[in-house]
């Protein structure tokens, strides 16, 4: 056991630091910033060299993440592409697709989105209805996606469709790369509860997709989607500790305001800070354990979901405290913490809701029996009756 950097890790950290010092990001140009970082070798660190990556280790990527977070830099614009879409293309794409898409994705020359959820398919993703039908040497796609983060800016997306409604629902799915600028694709921004518009509705009206933009075999879309979801876990590595505010920042904020509170409130605030802080440290150090496992070449298992689950909880508790130490003024002021407070409910839903994550951990880690399901042994068509 050893928390210190190895000599290699230390050298890498120094390299990253030196670069970040010389190249302050330009917040208004997130794509240019990602390209600059990529050209220096700091994006897609763990991706294979053939895929435009650096063939580095998860620890090297973690060090880049730590150093950028330390400087308070925002996450990369193409995070969904890097964390989810790209890895899916690496595993299931053709040589042509890999050549065409991956490097441009890493440089943010193209932005990507993930077109999975639908109005009637979120947690129950395999219930999706967007249809893809053969049409000569290609496909015609019609249907609707929803909650699609970044679709309003994206150039491409990975799109999960139903190609066969007459088999059980997990089996009749097929994945494609879709050109978001293709005729028939309509993107309508949705307004989130925090007032931002980062996610969208996406309508497909008889959109043509060439067959060579298929990812994986026809009918094998569920397996392809599992690659995406597994990569999502990997990219949430660090045990969910990238969710919400850094506990140190909350402690700083509480320290600055606690003196103005009545004595009994100070005692209470310290209890809550203590509890939130311990939970955040627990998540952080559990993340380090997972990172160490990844570095030894082990695959991320379902236990990685625990980090997102608990990281979201402690982020919400700590943010709640940060708002409350502002006193009644927080009803109208304290924008930074209010914004955070309005962002976090989405984290308990996106990428697997808290309840779904508990099911996953209960069944795959603890080995508890699954619930009986009403959709078992029937075709998709029968299941929607």
């Amino acid at each position, binding site marked *: *056991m*050893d*928390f*210190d*950097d*190895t000599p290699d*890790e230390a050298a890498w950290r120094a390299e990253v630091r030196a670069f970040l010092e010389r190249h302050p990001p330009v917040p208004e140009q997130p794509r240019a910033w990602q390209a600059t970082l990529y050209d220096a070798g700091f994006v897609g660190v763990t991706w294979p060299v053939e895929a435009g990556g650096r063939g580095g280790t998860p*620890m090297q990527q973690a060090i880049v993440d730590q150093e950028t977070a330390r400087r308070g830099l925002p996450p990369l614009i193409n995070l969904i592409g890097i964390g989810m879409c790209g890895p899916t293309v690496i595993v299931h794409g053709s040589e042509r697709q890999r050549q065409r898409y991956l490097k441009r994705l890493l440089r943010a020359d193209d932005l990507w989105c993930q077109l999975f959820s639908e109005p009637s398919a979120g947690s129950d993703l395999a219930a999706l209805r967007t249809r893809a039908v053969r049409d000569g040497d290609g496909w015609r796609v019609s249907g609707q996606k929803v909650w699609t983060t970044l679709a309003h800016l994206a150039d491409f997306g990975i799109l999960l469709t139903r190609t066969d409604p007459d088999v059980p629902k997990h089996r009749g799915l097929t994945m494609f790369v879709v050109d978001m600028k293709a005729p028939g694709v309509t993107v309508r921004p949705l307004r989130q509860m925090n007032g931002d518009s980062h996610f969208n509705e996406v309508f497909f009206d008889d959109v043509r997709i060439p067959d060579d933009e298929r990812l994986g075999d026809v009918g094998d879309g569920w397996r392809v989607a599992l690659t995406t979801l597994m990569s999502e876990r990997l990219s949430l590595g660090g045990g969910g500790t990238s969710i919400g505010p850094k*506990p*140190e920042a909350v*402690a*700083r904020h*509480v*320290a600055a305001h*606690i003196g103005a509170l009545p004595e009994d409130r100070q*005692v209470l*605030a*310290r*209890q809550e*800070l*203590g*509890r939130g*802080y*311990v*939970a955040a*440290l*627990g*998540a952080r*150090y*559990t993340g*380090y*354990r997972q*990172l*160490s*496992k990844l*570095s030894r070449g082990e695959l991320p298992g379902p*236990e990685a979901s*625990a980090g997102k*689950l*608990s990281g979201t909880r402690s982020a919400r508790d700590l943010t709640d405290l940060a708002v409350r130490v502002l006193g009644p003024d927080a009803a109208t002021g304290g924008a930074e913490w209010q914004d955070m407070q309005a962002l976090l409910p989405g984290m308990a839903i996106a990428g697997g809701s808290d*309840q779904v994550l*508990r*099911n996953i*951990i*209960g*069944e795959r*880690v*603890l*080995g*508890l*029996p*699954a*619930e*009986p399901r009403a959709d078992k042994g029937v075709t998709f068509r029968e299941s929607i009756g």
Partner: protein
Amino acid sequence: MNFDLDQEHLDLAGGARDFLSGSASPAAARAALDEGAGVRPGRAELIKSGYATITIPESHGGGGGTVLQLAVVAEQAGRVLAGPSLVNFARAAVLLEGFPDRLAGLADGSLAVAVIDDASPVLDAIGSDTFLTLRDGTLVCGPGEVMARRPIDATRGLGDVTLGETTDLVRDARPLWRKAERVGRTILAAEGLGAAARLLEMGVEYAKERHTFGRPIGSYQAVKHMLVDVYVAVEQLRSLVWWAAWAADRAPGELPLASAAAKAAAATTLELAAETVIQVHGGIGYTWEHDAHLYWRRAKTDRFLLGDDVAAFDEVARLAMGEAAR
């Protein structure tokens, strides 16, 4: 960075598990409550095994090992509610650093040492003959008269101690005392980790076996999700215990925060695990014959040792704010 146990630690844990599960058990903890039977494996056996004295230097008859090694063993001790606790051994090894004869006595069992805190009942007072405490900033040592308390958890040997004539050992001993306390908190948390991990196993096992309404109860989300919350808490506690133990050995600057966090998390996690697992068992979980309450007793007792969880959370908050203000 490599944050995981090494093979050497895993081997140590395996050996400790064999020894402890052969010499201690929840049944023994029940007998201690029922009949006032002595704790198992008992001081003599623990010393003979070498596990209790891991952190005493080899030159004084100990194992010359690390706090992390002792923590690995302590987890196994917690699984089977072993007694006496390894906490006093860990603390005394730090406090008696400059006293070779006493250290040797601790290592060979001729001295049975317990540490007295102001605010907490004295752990393993019963069976101890030599007591260490901090009096006006001075570390003192002496014999004492023990009055047993009515135990919630009879494996903890709690009692009140009236000190006899004491010897001053170290003046201005506060920093040393704090360090020992933090090492002690780390080992206490490791014992709590073992107990909580064992409880989780019991709960999961039962949830797979027990059927109601034609289904295993573990398939009901109300049951499943409770157990998942325990699992998450146990794994986070494991991370905090390892971190604190590593800090005790290698990064003294991180020990205050790490040990307070581990102590606090151990108290809340063990309590959550015990209450959850009783609930998961239904009526049988509420019986004297079932093991769950023996772990529950451990939870209800340990939370008050070495300062309670409220104090530990407060300390975490103060440290976090202090560090932030720096």
